């Protein structure tokens, strides 16, 4: 009896781990797309509204999905702290906190980090260029992420359970 329960537990655990991995693949394209639309909102605020960056960040945070909003909310908060840091430092700090809780990959975060170099500190045309570049890069990442999702989601969903089964059959 205990043996059967143990076996079931092993299969459940590996199965769950597999599904979690699959979920990550499934979510990433979606997160990348909301990140793109977040930058789109930021662009509108900067180019058409000439909204100061801290306020623009808050606007973006209020109008995007919660998982992405965290980054912009944090960035807005960092910018408003009167510590005399540069925009890049504030943005990097926000990114660091964001990295700890996002499913996005390092390559995605690198695009955002790159954006921090130019954020805020030039005229509108220049801001537009940099934002477009980042959005384009995110679009490419999103495309390859959905490609990957197609195969990997199914793969990991099965792989977890199958690994469990394998373990059980070997050690039973």
């Amino acid at each position, binding site marked *: 009896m205990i043996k059967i329960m143990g076996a079931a537990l092993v299969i459940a655990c590996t199965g769950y781990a597999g599904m979690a991995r699959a979920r990550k693949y499934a979510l990433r394209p979606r997160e990348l797309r909301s990140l793109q639309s977040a930058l789109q909102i930021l662009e509108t605020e*900067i*180019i058409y509204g*000439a*909204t*100061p*960056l*801290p306020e*623009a960040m808050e606007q973006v945070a209020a109008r995007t999905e919660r998982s992405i909003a965290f980054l912009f909310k944090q960035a807005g908060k960092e*910018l408003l702290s*009167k*510590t*005399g*840091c*540069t*925009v890049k430092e*504030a943005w990097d700090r926000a990114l660091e906190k964001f990295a700890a809780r996002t499913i996005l990959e390092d390559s995605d975060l690198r695009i955002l980090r790159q954006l921090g170099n130019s*954020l*805020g*500190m*030039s*005229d*509108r045309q*220049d*801001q537009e260029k940099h934002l477009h570049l980042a959005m384009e890069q995110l679009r490419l990442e999103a495309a390859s992420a959905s490609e990957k999702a197609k195969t990997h989601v199914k793969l990991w969903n099965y792989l977890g359970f199958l690994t469990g089964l394998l373990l059980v059959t070997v050690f039973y």
Partner: protein
Amino acid sequence: MELMGTGTKEKLNSYHPVFSVLPGNLRELVAGLPLQFMDRLEEIRLRQNRPLIVTHTAGDIYLSPAGEPTRHPGNAYIVSGDDIQRVTRMVSNSSLYAIEEELKNGYITLPGGHRVGITGKAVLEAGKVKTIKYISGFNIRVSREVKGIADNILPYLLDKDGRVKHCLIISPPRCGKTTLLRDLVRLISNGKPELNYTGVNVGLVDERSELAGCYRGVPQRDIGLRTDVLDACPKAEGMMMLLRAMAPQVIATDEIGKVEDIKAMEEVVNAGVTVLSTVHGSSPEEIMRRPALKYLLGLNVIEKFIILGRSRGVGTVEDIADGTGFLFGGVDK
């Protein structure tokens, strides 16, 4: 008349908006200044790769890396490119793209009415300055609010019916004309029971946001209970807008000089509204040499000139002259 009081804790706090645009290391340097110096602080000058200089009422000094005032440039703290970058981000609220209009004019105003002058490389478009690139220098000017300095002046500006006379404050730069105008506006707006004067509606066109120190349209300085402020509005247009919409008895602006400003003033005077303004110069004779102002004086409407100087410290009232007296050749005290 001296504008400066003695150092108090309260005053120190009111400088905070200025210090908050400095990065931590510079803030520490400047905050270490002795209290009596702080009290007379006028400017903080930052020029990339050159010494940090602070200006007070009696001159300027360098600051050493330890924050000690020094007379020797060799011992001074040298402002780095990194410092400049950080100040740029602080004064622009992280958004250079949002202050393009201000950069064109070469300065921006901080919350509280403190003005920051900016230098660097000008970028031109169709022969006009489009923006400033490679920002390399700042002049952070401490703006003061000194209530009560206009107390002794107001009686000169009231006629026997209690109407405010058309008045022009003439002063060289950094002699306290903005401070005086702000206090005059406050008094004219609030009224003064001792003089049996009840106060009237004042329209204030604050093109450079220095007088009322508006933040998001709300005045941060005490400019009186009956004062309506048009913040960041061009003077000539603003005067007409106020005249049409706000029924002011007095319209006040800072630093007139352009032809369209004078035209608008003429319009205001003809509508039976009192004008109150300041102008750069040191005497009525001197400003007569500027064509636009000559035209204004030629209209013979300005009733009082207040002439400021620094002979006994910032904000010394050198003279209060009658407009007509001046035009007849003599300056009537």
